[in-house]
């Protein structure tokens, strides 16, 4: 067995005890790494019904198979826990030098449990684990913390994952930051904060060996070449902000809390405009051959000095979605969120929800601590974001996320709380992308574009995006499983069009890396296994069919302008597509997993706990 170490490090921060779990090649092949392995670790280590912010929740890290090798865009890691935002599986990924280092330290995965009495920095120095007093780092920004810890420990090679004020103060959508990249969604930083772990520092000194280095290097050279080609051009040249104008043209650019779909200032916040006026440099994650992250800097005006690696999702959420039509404040706000350690996407959608509440008179100026929270008020947004991270005044309400905040405020504000399962929506107005609408509704971690990938079908015109029809369920399933394979290996999805034959190429590369035989068919099954395992976690946490749903705005408010003017997703359409999806998955009409399906996927050990006996045929149309 190569690349893998076969060892998972368990750390209990309550009593500062550690133990090592040995895992077999069969187990590793089944879950591979990243989100796959992290989800299995979460399933095994989090008792059903655990408080996400309590000691029983487990924060599970899993390395990419390719971490620290030349395999392009393969140096990433996955993290999973029970999400404080959704109450379901909270899995997230980050590109990083961090994953490489924890593989060098000798670990395929790390599981953090318990709750430390005092704030700690957990320092993993190969197989030695130290718990260091973190008091001096409290309140420090994420990037500053990482540098300060390296200086403190006296070694520039040390890699650090840290939380900011957001995680310390248990904002439900806090991030874990490493080298300016984030484990961003579903609040894994909150879980880390609840355990009073300010940072995890790792130093590893073991070389990483692969089964056939020459073959892996040859594959690398091929992929480096294809990843400079047309399939990645949009990422390399403009980065993901190139989506702004595309989405605007399609009439699916979420504007002013998803109330509008076309933004009058789209040009001024476009990837093209950013490239010409603000972009300084493209930066890559470790082992990246693409470099999508466009670092933009503001050189004059009130936001002079602001600098951020800005991607489309952060840009949409903090820009058009908040009615902000120029780049300098967006660059500033994005970096502010990163430094405070809160998810730019959830934050943007929470702020926009508060702005709509303010404009509708649901939240008064007094309730907003004197802030005039009109759409477009970038200064107020900045103050609000700092309040959220500190849970100060109205920030305490908004730190709960849109689902909880709207339930508390009421007055119809649930209708425009743009979330599913509690996770705030990504930058696509799904009223004009109906396959993707259903894809977001069934997402195990809540509404997420990266896990669903169904937007590709609507954007590329594979299907009629304004129509809901039977057959979409199967397409959604395929996209989801394709995404799950990338998330488990881990490979960045921006490489997805660089292969001749993905299943053949990726399974071969897995084998030359690990020495473990993997067929294309087995790799396809991995995707299905990971999707079902995540669902199994949710079922054990009490998931019901009603949890797979979308906010009222998507299901009732016609789009006011653009190519899809007048269109929305009807509840009947959504129901039909979701049922179609359950049927395509071989699940019951209630969305539960038959025992036989779990056995088929090699998950027989959880079949008794999760599986249902008689698969009822899914109803086609209610």
């Amino acid at each position: 067995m190569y690349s893998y170490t076969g060892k998972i490090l368990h750390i209990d921060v309550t009593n500062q005890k550690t133990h090592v779990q040995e895992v077999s090649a069969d187990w590793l092949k089944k879950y591979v790494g990243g989100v796959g392995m992290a989800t299995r670790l979460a399933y095994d280590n989090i008792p059903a019904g655990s408080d996400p912010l309590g000691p029983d929740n487990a924060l599970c890290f899993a390395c990419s198979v390719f971490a620290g090798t030349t395999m392009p865009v393969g140096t990433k890691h996955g993290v999973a826990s029970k999400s404080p935002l959704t109450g379901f599986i909270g899995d997230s990924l980050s590109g990083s030098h961090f994953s490489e280092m924890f593989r060098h330290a000798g670990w395929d995965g790390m599981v953090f449990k318990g709750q430390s009495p005092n704030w700690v920095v957990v320092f993993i120095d190969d197989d030695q684990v130290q718990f260091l007093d973190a008091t001096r780092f409290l309140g420090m920004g994420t990037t500053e913390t990482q540098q300060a810890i390296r200086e403190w420990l006296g070694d520039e090679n040390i890699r650090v994952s840290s939380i900011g004020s957001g995680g310390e103060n248990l904002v439900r959508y806090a991030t874990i930051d490493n080298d300016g990249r984030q484990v961003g969604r579903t609040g894994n930083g909150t879980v880390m904060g609840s355990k009073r772990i300010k940072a995890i520092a790792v130093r590893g000194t073991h070389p990483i060996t692969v089964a056939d280095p020459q073959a892996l290097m040859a594959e690398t050279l091929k992929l480096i070449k294809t990843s400079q080609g047309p399939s990645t051009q949009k990422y390399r040249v403009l980065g993901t902000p190139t989506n702004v104008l595309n989405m605007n043209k399609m009439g699916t650019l979420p504007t002013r809390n998803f109330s509008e779909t076309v933004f009058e200032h789209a040009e001024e916040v476009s990837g093209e405009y950013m490239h010409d006026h603000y972009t300084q440099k493209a930066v890559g994650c470790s082992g990246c051959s693409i470099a999508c992250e466009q670092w933009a800097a503001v050189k004059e005006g009130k936001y002079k000095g602001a600098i951020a690696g800005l991607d489309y999702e952060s840009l949409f959420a903090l820009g058009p979605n908040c009615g902000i039509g120029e780049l300098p404040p967006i660059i500033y706000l994005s970096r502010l969120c990163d430094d405070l350690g809160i998810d730019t996407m959830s934050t943007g959608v929470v702020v926009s929800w508060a702005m709509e509440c303010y404009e509708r008179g649901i939240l008064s100026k007094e309730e907003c601590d004197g802030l005039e929270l009109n759409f477009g008020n970038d200064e107020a947004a900045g103050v609000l974001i700092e309040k959220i991270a500190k849970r100060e005044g109205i920030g305490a309400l908004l730190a709960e996320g849109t689902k909880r905040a709207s339930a508390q405020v009421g007055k119809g504000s649930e209708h425009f709380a743009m979330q599913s399962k509690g996770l705030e929506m990504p930058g696509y107005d799904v009223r004009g992308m109906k396959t993707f609408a259903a894809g977001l509704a069934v997402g195990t971690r809540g509404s997420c574009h990266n896990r669903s990938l169904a937007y590709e079908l609507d954007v590329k015109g594979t299907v009629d995006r304004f129509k809901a029809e039977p057959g979409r369920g199967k397409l959604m399933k395929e996209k989801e499983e394709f995404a799950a394979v990338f998330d488990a290996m881990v490979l960045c999805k921006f490489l997805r069009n660089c292969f001749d034959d993905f299943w053949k190429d990726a399974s071969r590369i897995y084998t030359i890396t690990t020495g473990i035989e993997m067929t294309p068919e087995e790799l396809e099954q991995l995707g299905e296994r990971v999707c079902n395992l995540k669902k199994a976690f949710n079922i054990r946490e009490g998931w019901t069919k009603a949890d797979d749903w979308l906010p009222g705005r998507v299901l009732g408010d016609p789009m006011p302008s653009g190519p899809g003017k007048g269109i929305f997703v009807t509840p009947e359409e959504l129901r039909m597509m979701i049922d179609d999806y359950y049927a395509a998955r071989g699940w019951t009409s209630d969305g539960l997993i038959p025992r036989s399906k779990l056995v088929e996927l090699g998950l027989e050990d959880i079949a008794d706990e999760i599986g249902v006996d008689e698969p009822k045929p899914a109803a086609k149309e209610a």
Partner: protein
Amino acid sequence: MAQIGYQHIICDPTKCIGCRMCEYACSATKTNAFDPNLSRIRVVRIEPITMTAISCRLCADAPCIIACPRDALTRSEENGAILVDEDKCDGCGWCVEACDFGAVVLNPVTRNAEICNLCVDQEEGPQCVRFCPKEALSLATPEVLRQQARREVVARLFEELLNEK
């Protein structure tokens, strides 16, 4: 041959994306395993956008050679690279201290100093250059780069002048 300086690995910081592919490729080439600590080229990133890769610059008057108390370091007559005599080197680290660029590696396993040898033993030349996805690395002398820079700037200026008409 009237050459100013030796060819060495030069990194263009405007092209470097900080991916560290060069470190992975170097260590795999030299040790058959991936271990940046043994890479003879290292990427330095000063947050957030300042980054470049550094390896041996083949200094004309190399301080590492002068510093070595056991005369283990010599200059290759073939390409000017600093050669380490493994029998003589005892891993004392004087060369590491003498190098202004942090380009000398002390290998904890072999207990030897290790320095970029420009991959003289590799058919395709330096592997870091070959694996750099953004063509930020090149094998060149400073003089060659200077010539290139002059040509590029003049070409750009004239292009701008012509476009303005």
